């Protein structure tokens, strides 16, 4: 394989029309374009460093404002193609974490969990970690030590995580928290199309005639994407939203399908049933470009609207209406997110959406296609280069002989040395509980808040003999560790991320890390050196890692070879596959009607709906579903420390329908088979009477994930966060929200403490109205 062989050249690549800017953004001036002496702030010697937001999969462009002393002190909107200066509250406040008083600035260490953390030197922390790795591996084998990465890391670092586990630790056990994010969509896309990414860029939304959003609270989770939705609406596009709650985006939809959690594939099968019955399929497209249609059609025939209406708890006419609106539209698109992916049938749910797009021929055209929206900034890029337990760089399979050989050649190791596939993140925790995994390093993740069934997670981590974490704040998980390495924020290093469109963007360094803080790259290379694998980890910085990553991806479907730092800076982002340095990238897939399977066809798969894993009974008759709020990011380790965001949403709540007789703000106990917690009730008609919603960004005793079930999708191994059986009861008092942990010697940051003790939910969090004014 030579890196210059352009594998994807058989495709015609049509670059996007640059005039396709989201509405309302054309007249904007960008402060970066104003000469320094003409903008007053610059008279203070301020510089603007172009970069991107560290949070969600939209990856909005922004400038970090840097003062004369080289410190980040503010944010300025940036006219980047993705967001055209728009930002959500997380993006606006993100800069505040860079020089936050809670930042970890020295390695923390303790020899047992009974001791308190001590600040120690880097040498001491690294030596202790290496000696513990060696001790555990000598006694229990290499696989007794595991590594868990994160999808908020730059791609260079995720590449290093995969390489470090296999080459330095020589362990099969590596996985990452993107496992909790969009792996269901990844699995479905790979099965159907042979490529794991969204088919269309965001700007295609502006061209569509019908937009279907399934399981995405787009307005709160990916706020900046809504400008594309409004742009489509201005052109007259219809909007269909499938969500148990009336979210801000559902409020304005032509059709809001408020189905019962966990019934998505029954719904989509039924929509397909109607499409077939009414002769709305694109038969020519099906014949030319798909396989498996007969089985899919036969399965869909088992879901007439009357049956699906009963399963989903919605009117049958709505199913007919959705089918007609989507199939008759000249161009239609489907975007989905965790709402349909976080299920024990997450892969099937995504496949049922793909079936609908394929059957109606809405694939691979401007304004027609599918997409999945990543929760974490690098949810897309984070799994492409070998951080996932079953993947090698370039999306290669670790089970495939040929792929193993290729990577061993690049890494300079013997094939026999490369471990086989490991297990998924939740399975690793179960293995920790069973003491099969006895040591663990976590990088950029916070499973104590983000994994389901908190009790099991705590037991698993408590059972480890050695646990180290890399982080820049002391997360709830890091507070359980033996060693905590203080590492850089996104503003203190450079690297790339791939957003939900698979557009690779470059983050730039805005300031030097505080003294005592090192990059994750440095720590991994240093650990590898002390483990005796230094020659395989002789990387000085991200740029050197990226150059190896490019070569390691060359010739694969996830081809990054043609992407260089210089090109990214020039273009503002390149969408992979990009096989050569003069290749423009591939924003839209399948324009020539060919997928990435050898036969070039879409492999449609019949999907059977089954009941969720946690069954309803008389004691647990309702559905609990979880999700995000616009002010917070994932486990909240970062955003729960920023004053403005804490003030905006100080605590979680339980959203319930007025029919249960609760008053707004009253304590409501939510009980599942895993446990119970008490939240203030947020009483609103914007939710189904049989459903309870709790946002998940907080730790116990206000953690939605103390209640959710650790059942997994058999194929993607994603946990079933979005549905479990529950009941609600009156309670005496509301559980207090604990403050985020801080390192010894740091005092709790006063700005974030103010509203934390307030027992009431915010009057109307993010526009979700309550039935009474408080």
């Amino acid at each position: 394989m030579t890196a210059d062989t352009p594998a994807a050249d058989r495709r015609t690549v049509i670059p996007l029309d640059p005039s396709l800017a989201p509405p309302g953004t054309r007249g904007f001036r960008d402060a970066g374009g104003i000469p320094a002496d003409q903008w007053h702030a610059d008279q203070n010697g301020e510089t603007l460093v172009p970069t991107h937001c560290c949070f969600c999969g939209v990856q909005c462009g922004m400038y970090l404002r840097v003062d004369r002393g080289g410190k980040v002190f503010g944010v300025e909107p940036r006219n980047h193609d993705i967001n055209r200066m728009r930002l959500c509250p997380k993006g606006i406040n993100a800069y505040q974490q860079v020089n936050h008083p809670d930042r970890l600035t020295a390695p923390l260490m303790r020899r047992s969990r009974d001791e308190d953390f001590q600040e120690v030197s880097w040498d001491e922390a690294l030596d202790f970690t290496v000696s513990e790795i060696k001790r555990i591996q000598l006694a229990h084998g290499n696989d007794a030590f595991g590594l868990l990465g994160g999808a908020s890391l730059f791609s260079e670092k995720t590449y290093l995580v995969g390489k470090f586990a296999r080459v330095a630790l020589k362990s099969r056990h590596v996985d990452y928290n993107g496992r909790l994010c969009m792996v269901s969509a990844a699995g479905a896309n790979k099965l159907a199309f042979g490529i794991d990414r969204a088919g269309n860029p965001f700007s295609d939304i502006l061209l569509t005639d019908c937009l279907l959003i399934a399981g995405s609270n787009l307005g709160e989770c990916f706020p900046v994407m809504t400008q594309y939705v409004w742009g489509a609406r201005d052109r007259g596009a219809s909007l269909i939203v499938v969500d148990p709650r009336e979210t801000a985006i559902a409020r304005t939809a032509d059709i809001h399908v408020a189905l019962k959690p966990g019934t998505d594939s029954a719904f989509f099968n039924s929509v397909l049933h109607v499409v077939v019955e009414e002769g709305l399929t694109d038969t020519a497209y099906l014949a030319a470009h798909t396989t498996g249609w007969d089985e899919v059609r036969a399965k869909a025939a088992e879901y007439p609207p009357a049956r699906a209406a009963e399963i989903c708890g919605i009117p049958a006419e709505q199913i007919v209406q959705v089918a007609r609106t989507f199939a008759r539209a000249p161009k239609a698109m489907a975007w989905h997110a965790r709402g349909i992916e976080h299920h024990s049938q997450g892969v099937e749910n995504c496949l049922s959406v793909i079936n609908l797009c394929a059957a109606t021929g809405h694939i691979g055209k401007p304004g027609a296609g599918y997409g999945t929206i990543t929760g974490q900034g690098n949810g897309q890029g984070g799994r492409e280069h070998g951080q996932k337990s079953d993947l090698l760089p370039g999306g290669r399979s670790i089970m495939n002989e040929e792929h193993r050989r290729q990577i061993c050649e690049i890494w300079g190791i013997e094939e026999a040395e490369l471990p086989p596939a490991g297990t998924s993140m939740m399975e690793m925790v179960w293995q920790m509980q069973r003491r099969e995994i006895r040591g663990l390093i976590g990088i950029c993740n916070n499973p104590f808040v983000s994994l389901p069934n908190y009790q099991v997670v705590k037991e698993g981590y408590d059972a480890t003999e050695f646990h180290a974490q890399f982080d820049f704040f002391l997360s709830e998980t890091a507070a359980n560790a033996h060693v905590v390495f203080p590492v850089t924020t996104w503003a203190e290093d450079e690297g790339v991320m791939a957003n939900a469109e698979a557009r690779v963007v470059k983050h730039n360094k805005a300031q030097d890390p505080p003294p005592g803080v090192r990059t994750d790259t440095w720590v991994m290379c240093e650990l590898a050196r002390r483990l005796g694998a230094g020659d395989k980890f002789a990387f000085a910085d991200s740029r050197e890692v990226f150059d190896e990553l490019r070569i390691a991806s060359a010739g694969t479907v996830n081809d990054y070879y043609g992407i260089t730092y210089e090109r990214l800076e020039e273009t503002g982002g390149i969408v992979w596959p990009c096989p050569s340095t003069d290749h423009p990238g591939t924003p839209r897939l399948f324009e020539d009607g060919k997928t990435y399977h050898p036969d070039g066809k879409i492999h449609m798969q019949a999907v059977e709906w089954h009941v969720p894993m946690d069954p309803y009974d008389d004691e647990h008759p309702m559905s609990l579903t979880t999700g995000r709020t616009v002010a917070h990011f994932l486990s909240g380790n970062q955003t729960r420390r920023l004053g403005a965001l804490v003030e905006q949403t100080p605590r979680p709540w339980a959203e319930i329908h007025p029919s249960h007789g609760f008053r707004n703000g009253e304590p409501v106990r939510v009980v599942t088979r895993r446990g119970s917690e008490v939240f203030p009730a947020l009483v609103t008609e914007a939710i189904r009477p049989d459903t309870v919603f709790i946002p998940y960004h907080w730790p116990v005793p206000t953690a939605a994930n103390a209640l959710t079930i650790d059942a997994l999708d058999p194929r993607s191994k994603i946990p079933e966060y979005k549905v479990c059986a529950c009941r609600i009861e009156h309670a005496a008092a509301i559980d207090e929200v604990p403050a985020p942990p801080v390192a010894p010697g740091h005092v709790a940051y006063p700005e974030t403490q103010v509203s934390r003790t307030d027992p009431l939910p915010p009057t109307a969090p993010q526009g979700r109205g309550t039935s009474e004014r408080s």
Partner: protein
Amino acid sequence: MMGRTIFIDPGRCIGCQACVSACRECDSHRGKSMIHLDYTDEGQSVASLPTVCMHCEDPVAPCAEVCPADAILITADGVVQQADTTRCIGCANCVNACPFGVPKIDLQAKLQMKCNLCYDRTAYGLAPMCATVCPTGALFYGTIEELRAERPGVQVADTFVFGETEVRTGVAMVVPAEKVQWPVPGGLPVVEINGKDVRR
């Protein structure tokens, strides 16, 4: 009508409060937000509505008219500035006079603060912070022509009635296209309630 100004479209607002956070970042009142985000129909709907200073034109800025210290100045292009810190005595007359409930008083500093349409930014051709970041375009900065080019057929109102008094503003609000557009009562784009015309 007006030149470059803010147009508020409550129909697009997702209540994300990016505008509130962005307003805090504006250099003219750094650390404090001058935007109110209201929820119009709590418990029934998730609808929300941002309020920025409406920069009243006729009668000219009630807040400025009642200021005993002449601290609130109005620029030639109609921007009602926040109180001049060297003059403001923190009496809160402006708070009481404003029909839209916009000015705020910092009780400790005894100073008034309000949205001044990001004068520090607009003077250099930048849009105000809130309208720049608003992810949905619920806050739009530009001319009416630019707005109409983006949103064909959009109807806006810049005249509001409060009882007997009519106020014409420099900031405009998008009203439902099928409704008669002005004057609208109470600062809200409502022209009828329960089938009754409430404009008179």
